[in-house]
């Protein structure tokens, strides 16, 4: 394989597509676990190949400036994508014991997290810091959704409306999705580092925007045990409209 920035970029993008596929298969009841394991195997192969490629690239090409930042970021993104694959496996296992339809927040989290993963990869491909920033902002939404799943579990548990085991598995799925959201956030932070050289990690101020505050307020207004999907698309459209105005 050619030792270059281009090969590295292509490999990371391919690995990212596999990570997206892994999330999709994790939630696809008709997909067999073996299909997901196969994807995870491919992700793990990329993990090794990409680390090796980064090492060789740095040892042989002595990159500097933006190329050096790119190589360093790729090592980190490589690890983050591998862990997304692991989380997809955990979700698939937990979902076998859960009736997904009873937990609308899980569906919403899946949609939000799936979009974050897609957008962090798009921002990597197009060096789009605006898109990367929007992924980082959305991390708070996913964290909030996870909290609402835990609240719902406690509420339903007290009323004995759900089995303890099922409730536990639901919180586990929410935790896995929240972790994937964190990993997509990490990747987006790395994209910003690649493009601008700025390290914006561990800065809570970055995650605060009035638009996200409004989104969180709208989520909180929705009944947590409502047996229907939270219409995040409509909320996003509404927010876009209000910010445009």
């Amino acid at each position, binding site marked *: 394989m050619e030792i270059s920035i281009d090969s590295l970029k292509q490999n990371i993008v391919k690995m990212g597509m596999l990570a997206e596929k892994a999330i999709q298969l994790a939630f696809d009841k008709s997909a067999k676990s073996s299909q997901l394991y196969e994807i995870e195997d491919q992700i793990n192969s990329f993990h090794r190949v990409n680390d090796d490629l980064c090492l060789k690239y740095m040892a042989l090409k*002595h*990159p*500097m*400036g*933006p*190329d*050096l930042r790119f190589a360093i970021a790729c090592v980190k993104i490589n690890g983050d994508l591998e862990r997304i694959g692991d989380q997809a496996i955990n979700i698939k296992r937990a979902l076998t014991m859960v009736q997904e339809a009873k937990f609308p927040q899980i569906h919403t989290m899946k949609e939000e997290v799936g979009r974050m993963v897609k957008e962090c990869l798009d921002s990597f491909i197009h060096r789009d810091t605006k898109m990367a920033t929007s992924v980082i902002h959305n991390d708070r939404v996913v964290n909030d959704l996870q909290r609402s799943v835990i609240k719902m579990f406690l509420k339903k548990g007290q009323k004995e409306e759900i089995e303890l085991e099922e409730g536990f598995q639901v919180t586990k799925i929410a935790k896995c999705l929240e972790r994937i959201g964190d990993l997509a956030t990490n990747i987006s932070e790395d994209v910003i580092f690649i493009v601008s*050289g700025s390290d914006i990690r561990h800065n809570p101020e970055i995650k605060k925007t009035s638009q996200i505050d409004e989104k969180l307020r709208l989520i909180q207004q929705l009944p947590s045990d409502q047996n229907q999907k939270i219409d995040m698309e409509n909320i996003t459209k509404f927010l876009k409209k209000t910010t445009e105005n």
Partner: protein
Amino acid sequence: MEEAKTILSTKNLECFFGDFQAVKGISIDYKEKSINAIIGPSGCGKSTYLRSLNRIHEEIPGAYNKGEVNLLGKNIYEKDVDPVLIRRNIGMVFQKPNPFPSLSIFDNVVIGLKLQGVKNKSLLQEKAEHSLRKAALWDEVKDKLNKPGTSLSGGQQQRLCIARTIAVDPPVILMDEPTSALDPIATASIEELMMELKKEFCVIIVTHNMQQAARVADNTAFFVLGELIEQGASEQIFTNPKQKKTEDYITGRFG
């Protein structure tokens, strides 16, 4: 922390070869106890600029300078300044090791002092040992000080030239691609030596080797076609340069 003192500075320095302007209005401050690298593609004027810092440039027929080079606040291009005195205060190490072929290792080191009129043998011996130790060469040559300087290996010869330069205690040392003629082991020993020299001297080095600049220099200046494109801390220049031209050069897309 106390800010380091500026020992040498250029102010709008311009260098000419007849009608041709090789260096265009460069202003840089050099702090004491620092290593400063100058990088840039061939023909960018970096060696000419360096040679103007101790008035060697003007030795070329038709060559002259404009602007200021201030050593401890005094412009070295003022009429009352003796260029020989300047070269004693601003030493220079060249690309190819150039020990005097007819002189022994010992005499190569103390030649500068002898030319200054120092005759005291014990002082000369003391200075020779001190300089050779500083140049990390003492242990290798202490038993053959009377052998010709040219009997040493390339790396040793370059360290001998460094010992010769520091024997007269110049506050500033200029190095024009000092390792480009050396193998990696000799290069590593010279780089190690530069880090030692930095504890006492201000070192200004012209290099084509960007990894070398990144490894040893505190500050780096990037020249293109006689102009200063960017200067700053090496860690900034080599990880997050501000100018597109610098970025293109350090990533190998230009130059």
